[in-house]
């Protein structure tokens, strides 16, 4: 599970970080002193040379980090599922006809009614972590909830509008 990120100083230029993925590919980032950074992908045939070196602006690097970070967070949440006995994490898609589209999270009163917490909402490949009670749902949102099996089923039912409000 632990990934080894190797750091190599490039005197006069900056530093390179790279890692070998479980699929055997090597990816790296060359960070220049002047703030520029390149994403580098290594050749399969010749693992010493990079196949592509893609310069990223600050905004692009941030966006890429966000996308990767979002999927990372979900992975960690999934890992949590196995760690805490009895406590489950589930992704619940907001059904198309949900009464909560356009309404605030607080309106669901999910925590009071099911003892389960909505810990994150995924929208457009982005993760909104720990949304507050005034968070407004939109269509196609995916809710990440933590709770017992019974509680999570309750949240699913609430979001689907299957309970009497």
């Amino acid at each position: 599970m632990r990934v080894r990120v190797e750091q190599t100083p490039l005197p006069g230029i900056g530093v390179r970080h790279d890692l070998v993925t479980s699929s055997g590919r090597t990816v790296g980032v060359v960070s220049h002193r002047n703030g520029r950074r390149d994403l580098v992908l290594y050749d399969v045939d010749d693992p010493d040379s990079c196949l592509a070196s893609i310069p990223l602006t600050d905004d692009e690097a941030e966006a890429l980090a966000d996308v990767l970070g979002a999927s990372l967070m979900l992975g960690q949440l999934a890992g949590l599922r196995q760690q805490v006995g009895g406590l489950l994490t589930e992704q619940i898609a907001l059904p198309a006809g949900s009464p909560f589209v356009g309404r605030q999270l607080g309106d669901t009163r999910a925590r009071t009614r099911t003892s389960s917490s909505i810990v994150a909402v995924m929208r457009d490949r982005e993760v909104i972590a720990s949304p507050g009670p005034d968070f407004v749902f939109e269509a196609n949102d995916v809710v990440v909830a933590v709770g017992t099996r019974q509680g999570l089923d309750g949240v699913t039912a609430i979001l689907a509008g299957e309970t009497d409000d």
Partner: protein
Amino acid sequence: MHGTTILLIEVGALLFALGMLGRLGRRIGLSPIPLYLLAGLAFGHGGLIPLSASEEFIEIGASIGVILLLVMLGLEYSAGELVGNLRAAAPAGVIDALFNAVPGAAFAFLMGWDWRAALVLAGITWVSSSGVIAKVLGDLGRLGNRETPVILSVLVIEDLAMAFYLPLVTAVLAGVGLIGGLKALAIAVVTVLAVLVVAIRYGRQISALISARDAEALLLGVFGLTLFVAGVAEELNVSAAVGAFLVGIAISGPVAHHATEMLSPLRDLFAAVFFVFFGLSTNPVDMPPVLLPALGLAVITMLTKVLTGYLAAQRVGIALPGRLRAGLALMPRGEFSIVIAGLAVASGVEPGLAPLATAYVLITVVSGPMLARLPDYEWFKTFIRRWRQPSTPPVRPLAAED
């Protein structure tokens, strides 16, 4: 006309011409160094247009150019980087020195020159051009490659070795003999070690003296300090260039970063003047007789550089294509070789040295970056693949390749 007016006209026309040349070079993917050298050859002694009024000005500009080249080099590396690198790559540095300095010295003896000229020529063939090579690696998108740290560490060691070599050469050329040279070398070793220790321990305090916030004060502070230290070093026969290099190493952190930005345009200006000056002091009539020897020397020492890169990359477990890439990338000689040759010219040790060094640098700096591209061509890769696995038949199933 007044002397100053002529000077303005000459320097102005010269710099403008250099600007146009540099632009031309960039368009055809050539480093501006050979073009500046050629421009220098075209003017001055025995050239098309003698630059009489501005010669003194250009000479002073050239020595500032050397100092700026060196201080920028020092600024690029931190003291910690130098020491850490020295530990990791010292064997590669020794291979590099042996393989590339020895042929230069042997060549000088073959030409019937004395040992001082041999010492100078050894330095000229030893040192690769870190500026040109770093640019080539960037242009070819190889900064992420695994052999790149190997190339860079060879360059760093060469640059650090210059801190010992230049004082030795300066002293020897000053006519103090070998004993005097060794004394200068000892002074240099002590000074360099002291500066490295001080820079690692107190780098922050030194940099704090020069505030990074005020751009103008920073420029004047760093530039002034560099010139001052370089002058004092020269007075002590330790070579002005090394003094400047050490100032660059001692400055670190944000001050170094801002100083690099501030000094870069100045460096570009004065380094261009330096290359032109070197060309100016070489009479083009002296060039044709040394062309063939220079070509021979270039071929030999470029091959030894390939071998150096090959062995250095092999040491850290790089595969064959990467070793060849490292070797081919290390070939160009440039600014440092000219700096060393410049020292020799100033002391008039061997009249044939300057034209030989000019021709030598011209050949390596033009052909080196072109040859460095070789490993990227498909036919070269195929050739290497066949060579590595002669037993496997090259017949492959027809794969859909796009």
